[in-house]
């Protein structure tokens, strides 16, 4: 098992009611598994999670990125800066 620290922002944070949570994932888990874990936990956020990209330790990654114990995983919903 590995523990990852999940960070949420904007509409995802508001929908989940938190900006940070920890998730236990099996060893060999990938970034995309965190997305699926969040979708199970917060079914109302399923569509928004699908439109989000992933970041691990403050770098954009693909969903197949392997996770290590202690990684920080962020879901980045569609952006609207500027």
């Amino acid at each position, binding site marked *: 098992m590995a523990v990852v620290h999940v960070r949420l922002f904007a509409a995802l944070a508001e929908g989940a009611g938190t900006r940070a949570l920890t998730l236990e994932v099996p060893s060999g888990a990938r970034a995309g598994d965190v997305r699926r874990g969040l979708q199970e936990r917060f079914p109302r956020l399923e569509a928004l999670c699908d439109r989000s990209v992933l970041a691990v330790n403050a770098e954009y990654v693909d969903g197949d990125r392997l996770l290590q114990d202690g990684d920080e995983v962020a879901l*980045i919903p*569609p*952006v609207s*800066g500027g």
Partner: protein
Amino acid sequence: MYVQLTRDPLVADTLVEAVRTDASGAVVLFYGVVRNHNEGRAVLYLEYDAYPELAEKQLRAVAEEIRAGYRIDDIAIAHRIGRVDIGEASLLVAVASAHRAEAFDACHAAVDRIKQTAPIWKKEFWAGGGVWLDGTPVSGVERAVEPSV
């Protein structure tokens, strides 16, 4: 190169001075401000959220990409987060170059890339409520490769 993500009011002169060199003949400044309406509704103010560690990194990546792709002297980017009131600046991009055409093009491209890739979000507030605006799914970013084990 100057990149800033801050809760404080943005100061355009700081960016203009940061990019101007004695070889520059033009400084183009994009001065993005909060307006009082959106899609037919009166807006009171905006609240910006960001993933600060990645946002700063991404603004820097955009600046580097623009510097590599255009013949410019320098570029500066500043984005404000937190509450931003009507008329206040939310995004400033300054680009200096010897001639104006490159500075206009580079500044335009930088603003587009920031809006496509920086993990920053705006929530619009009006009388009686507020909503996170529907944004643009992040695209065209360099993704970190798998670390070798």
